[in-house]
């Protein structure tokens, strides 16, 4: 195994692991805020949870971007061809 493949695998792992930190913190804050809002106004729970799901999916996309970068590094690396 050459150094380029080694570096690609390491950086793919780094991309996924560090890319998961930010969205995890963001999702935690979003869920906490939604819980707070539902506790204050239980009658608005329907709208809040629908918006929450959409927001969570948008935040989760950041982690998915990192996953796509990692898969690009592992499967479609232009340097290893």
């Amino acid at each position, binding site marked *: 195994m050459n150094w380029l493949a080694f570096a690609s695998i390491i950086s793919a792992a780094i991309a996924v692991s560090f890319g998961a930190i930010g969205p995890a913190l963001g999702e935690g804050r979003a869920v906490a805020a939604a819980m707070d809002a539902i506790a204050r106004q239980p009658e608005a729970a329907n709208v809040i949870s629908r918006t929450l799901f*959409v927001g969570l*999916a948008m935040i*989760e*996309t950041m982690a998915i971007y990192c996953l*796509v970068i990692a898969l*690009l590094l592992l*499967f*479609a690396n232009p340097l290893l061809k």
Partner: protein
Amino acid sequence: MTSPLTSVALFYLGPVPITAGVVTTWVIMAVLVIGGILVSRRLSLVPSKTQAFFELIVDTVDGQIRDTMRLEPTPYRAFVGTLFIFIFVANWSSLIPGVEPPTAHIETDAALALLVFIAVIWFGVRAGGIRGYLSTFASPNPIMIPLNFIESLTRTFSLLVRLFGNVMSGVFVIGIVLSLAGLLVPIPLMALDLLTGAVQAYIFAILAMVFIAGAVGEIKPASNTLSQRRSP
């Protein structure tokens, strides 16, 4: 392990390679079109149970368009509704054994994102003419022209990567867990995948609506301000 970024040709139609995703896409299209024709062929004023169910779907799409775009839903219902229903059915087509959702391949998502990109231009030009649409790029002030131009490209790209990444990662993780753990273990992951698929179809449609409303809504005050404003 096969790469999730490439797709293998199933058979050749002349010189054109046909992949499994293309076949699935055409089957979904045929089912949706034929189902739509069959359902809407005998419409009655007093709806039957089937008609009531499909009217409920159309009504929900209309309500979402009205809530999100703040415009009358009639011109946008066909595009946005078809987009949502196609992506929804495509994401859930993984329920059928042996079928991989076509949205897990990047070319299907690229085609869908390109459709949204063209639809934004189409609806924008139709609402305010070519001059009116181009003037939206200079919307707060002309300094923003390059930024607005880049934004219209990058948001299309992020739409593509978002749908592709979400659906593909679900398929990929299920494949890994299946090869590591065995037969019945990935079932909870598949249930999660169904939720993700539905939410992603919803988000794709919502974002398409937001982009179109951004192009159409900015034109409105410039072209026909008074006649629009006076109506209650």
